[in-house]
């Protein structure tokens, strides 16, 4: 209940942030203007519209998640509101979890708003619903959940600016899993060992990108539901790891 109270307060606080609202408005405008880009063929039009919509949602979600994740805890310290919270019968882990959940709710609200507009635009443009696009938004949400947990973990010891670059940097590296994966077959044992470590240790953000499948019908994922469930499980388990680390670090943090 304490955790939820903190989450609720965090959500309300984040939703009052102008920067996030501006991001949301810009993203929604871009999604709505998607159909006005010139196209070559109906198939391309559909593909570009979808890939653009998903990309805008991903990009806006990314900024929203990072801005939220790096802020939620440091803002409390900076504004000294954390003193009143932590002097109450609130466990530090409850505080961390509450902040994480609040950030997650924020990201959810934002992604859901953009997703609904996106589906509306597709519906208007193509005259039918595209339920598969919901899957794309869901995958983005879980990808963002993992990124948010990462930013929260960093925020327990790094300043927001440093955190911004660390989170973004790891997101980029985590999207390049194909590079580390290709190194897994390297002949050099040392390279292979390092690559294996990097490949599995760094949160694999790239695996959540199913735009490929959603845009091109010929791309087949053998068991799509299984694939999505595995990715959701991955996001949850890895986030749990990051949150435990965050809790351990934050427990000794002087505020």
């Amino acid at each position, binding site marked *: *209940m*304490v955790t939820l*109270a*903190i989450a609720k*307060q965090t959500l*309300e*606080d984040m939703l*009052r942030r102008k920067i996030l609202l501006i991001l949301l408005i810009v993203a929604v405008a871009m999604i709505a203007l998607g159909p006005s880009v010139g196209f070559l063929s109906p198939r391309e039009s559909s593909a570009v519209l979808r890939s653009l919509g998903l990309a805008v949602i991903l990009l806006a979600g990314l900024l929203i998640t990072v801005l939220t994740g790096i802020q939620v805890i440091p803002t409390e310290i900076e*504004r*000294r*509101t*954390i*003193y*009143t*919270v*932590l*002097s*109450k*019968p*609130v*466990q530090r882990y409850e505080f961390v979890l509450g902040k994480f959940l609040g950030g997650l709710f924020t990201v959810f609200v934002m992604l859901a708003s953009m997703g609904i507009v996106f589906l509306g635009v597709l519906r208007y443009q193509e005259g039918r619903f595209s339920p598969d696009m919901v899957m794309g938004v869901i995958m983005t949400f879980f990808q963002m959940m993992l990124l948010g947990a990462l930013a929260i973990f960093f925020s327990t010891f790094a300043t927001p600016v440093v955190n911004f670059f660390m989170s973004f940097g790891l997101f980029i590296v985590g999207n390049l899993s194909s590079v580390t994966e290709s190194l897994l077959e390297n002949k050099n044992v040392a390279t292979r060992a390092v690559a294996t470590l990097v490949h599995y240790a760094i949160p694999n953000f790239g695996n959540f990108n199913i735009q490929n499948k959603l845009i091109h019908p010929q791309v087949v994922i053998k068991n799509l539901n299984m694939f999505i469930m595995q990715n959701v499980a991955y996001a949850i388990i890895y986030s749990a790891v990051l949150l435990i680390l965050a809790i351990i670090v934050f427990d*000794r943090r*002087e*505020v």
Partner: protein
Amino acid sequence: MAAAVSIQGLTKTYLDVWTKTEIRAVDRLNLEVEEGEVFGFLGRNGAGKTTTIKMLLGLIFPTEGTATVLGKPIGDIGVKGQISYLPEEAYFYEGMTGWDMLDFYARLFRISEPERSKRIQKALEDVYLDPSAWRRPLRGYSKGMRQRTGIAQALINDPKLLILDEPTSGLDPIAHAELRDIIANVGRQGKTVFLSSHQLPDVELTCSRVAIIHQGKLRTVGKTAELTSGDTVEIVYKGGDAALLEKIRKVVGAGEQSNGLGRVPGVAPKDTNPIVDLIRGAGAEIVSVAPHKRTLEEVFVDTVMKETGS
């Protein structure tokens, strides 16, 4: 009576990043605060008051030493439910209304409805916050209104122990006086108050006991009345001439005469009778022999000056 706060050898050192030297913000502090008293924790800016309080609340961790709060070690969650804290220059969630903020804190105390609403209402009334402001965002509050809301926030759980860190600093005189009354009121309700301040008149008026901390070290602790009660007397007489005054000055080294009244301050007990005899002998009339009362400010300045050696 049990100790509400008991501090043994509490020490906090910081490393100054610039000079690479160690700062002892709090230095082997020993302190006992009894249940039910309004305790004044005095010190100049930077004396270590806030640092001590943060350690008591588990916000930062002592370098050395231990403390118990309401009989339990620092950080005990059960105890946290029975204490409350108003930080120095408290900031709140600006977008929230006063009511919502109290609601949030009440939830952190795990107080559920309908009790929660009742408590919020009572706390806001107790601090005399204008009801028209209850549903307005804090962003539009004056400093005084914020501070009242801050106290209300600290009262929401009906605490046994209130820790207030310089609650009156930065307020205008009227808000200041009102807040002082609120605190005194809390004290009268039998709650323990741990009041950190450098506003000495406030402390003198509201606190039954005070401690003075300087450069992290405890310098003086005692009942306010005892600290301010001096061991000298002031003798006032009517009549007498310059020769009398001269004799008196020879004995105590002080004394003045104006408008027919003579005043001899700072007379030590051993000198009282000889001076009275002198006055009487000279045919003058004793008006009063009164024990001298120091202000807390004098005590404070004395204490601090003694330490700095000037």
